[in-house]
């Protein structure tokens, strides 16, 4: 049996999750005695495919086609399912990214495979893989086992580690899968890139602002702090609903789920629905003038103070420490 790792790339560049997924596959492969194969799909990917070797992919398969330059749910699913069948894959790992989450159920239906979604941990017990993740907005944890012969897991980005090992042997093979026009019944034709800061789901540092920021005109304090840290700007639903910030910045149960290494909550009370989206952050810092705000119950560090005084001071201190 083999493990297939889907290595996501866009515009000829791997997503960090591609390395995380490959390395997670390598670890599982070691525990279960299974060969690891990474799959890269796109327009021009043979040049980058070799990068996956350092993360533990012994074999790397590429499927290149100009029509696969942009993502197509139907065509990508066909390609991966086809490769999984040819290789007799027993386990398929994908990132729980917008692409991976879109592909996983399609593959599940094609391969009669159960999908364990958005896993934050994978453990091997005997010959079983037990996948865990938070549910009910982080109010409970669930562990599941996939019982079908083919098992699919999507891994929450930023949770699994990816550290390259130099000198690992790997081979890159080009594969072809026949694609007809009918396989592109849903197809991306362009991507509108939001310029500037990273997306909250990909950033390793997020600075979020809430209603305590008092108005959209004060979010430059959040933005400057985020920029000094090279981080993303996040928001509570209260400020998104008020129209102060765009909804793609919203963190929480009805926003995005994030797992950065550092999450700074500024003027955010810490409602359960907000915490739902960010409780798996590695380090949480809260700045709030109310010492009883619930956000302090989950924060690793807190300053009980006014954001309008604390944020500029924090920005200045960080500039000093980071030498900017």
């Amino acid at each position, binding site marked *: 049996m083999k493990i297939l790792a889907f290595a996501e790339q866009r515009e000829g560049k791997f997503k960090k999750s591609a390395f995380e997924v490959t390395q997670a596959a390598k670890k599982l492969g070691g525990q279960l005695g299974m060969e690891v194969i990474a799959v890269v799909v796109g327009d021009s990917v043979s040049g980058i495919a070799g990068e996956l070797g350092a993360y533990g992919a012994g074999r790397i398969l590429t499927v290149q086609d100009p029509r696969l330059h942009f993502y197509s749910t139907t065509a990508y699913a066909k390609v991966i399912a086809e490769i999984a069948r040819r290789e007799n894959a027993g386990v398929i790992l994908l990132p729980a990214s917008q692409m991976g989450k879109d592909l996983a*159920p399609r593959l599940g239906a094609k391969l009669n495979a159960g999908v364990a979604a958005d896993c934050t941990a994978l453990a091997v017990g005997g010959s079983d893989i037990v996948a865990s993740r938070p549910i*009910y907005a982080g*109010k409970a944890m669930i562990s599941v086992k996939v019982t079908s012969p083919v098992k699919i897991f999507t891994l929450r980005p930023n949770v699994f580690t990816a550290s390259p090992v130099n000198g690992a042997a790997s081979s890159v093979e080009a594969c072809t899968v026949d694609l007809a026009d009918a396989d592109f019944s849903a197809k*991306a034709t362009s*991507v*509108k890139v939001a310029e500037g800061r990273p*997306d909250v789901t990909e950033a390793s540092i997020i600075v979020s602002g809430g209603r305590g920021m008092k108005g959209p005109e004060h979010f430059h304090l959040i933005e400057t702090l985020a920029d000094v840290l090279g981080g993303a700007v996040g928001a509570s639903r209260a400020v998104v609903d008020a129209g102060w910030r765009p909804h793609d910045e919203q963190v929480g149960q009805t926003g995005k789920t994030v797992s950065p*290494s550092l999450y700074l909550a500024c003027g955010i009370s810490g409602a359960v629905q907000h915490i739902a989206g960010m409780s798996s952050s*590695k*380090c949480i810092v809260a700045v709030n003038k109310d010492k009883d705000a619930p956000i302090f119950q989950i924060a690793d560090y807190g300053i009980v103070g006014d954001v309008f005084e604390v944020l500029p001071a924090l920005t200045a201190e960080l500039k000093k420490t980071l030498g900017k």
Partner: protein
Amino acid sequence: MKIIVCINHVPDTEAKIKIGADGRTIDKAGINYMLSPYDEFAIEAALRLKEKFGGETLAISLGGDVHKETLRKALAMGVEKALLLKDDSPRDSDSIGRALAEEIKALAPDVVLFGKQSIDYSDELLPGLVAEHIGASSVTCVVKLDAQEKSFVCEREIEGGHEVVTAILPVVISTQKGLNEPRYPSLKGIMGAKSKPIEERQPKAFDSLVEVVAMSKPPAKQAGKIVGTDASAAAELVRLLHEEAKVI
């Protein structure tokens, strides 16, 4: 245009979650339920498609009798018909997807709408599962929709931007916040929904492919360190982040 919207009934976001005696499900006692928030965008999108193209709208929910409450909300918002696939037993996404697909395929809709995710398990699996089973195109996490007779041009959210996707009908769409502002049910709508019939059928059973091994409360986090009570604490906070937490 034949439009179907699939909706789910989930614990209120404020609900206190307790683990049930079996250690695999939640204790349902005392929990209030609501229409899953993303599904409101799906209902609104269904109504707008009907307003633009004419045709019919049908809301489907698979679950116990309590799901009728959520179907009534869809009717109150303006959906014309409702179908309860009545089944109270625990099912995994795969089996819900197969049961929904079976019903939906027989109805041969042009469009099937879903919320982006149910906020209970947040699997985000059903739109893709149903699309594949009924042989439809699909676009998930849609924030913008330009609907034409034969194809839809959608914008879906991706990391750091939007992907512009053309999808040929029949199509499955999952809706993300930002797509529209769901309408409030009118008083007339609410009154009317009370007397509208909700059709009931028993969905087919399928074996689960994902088995719950255990459910537990997350480990309690110990309260953190209050570094200070004014701006003068900034320097110490930066030192702690740098030297203790090592995150910057």
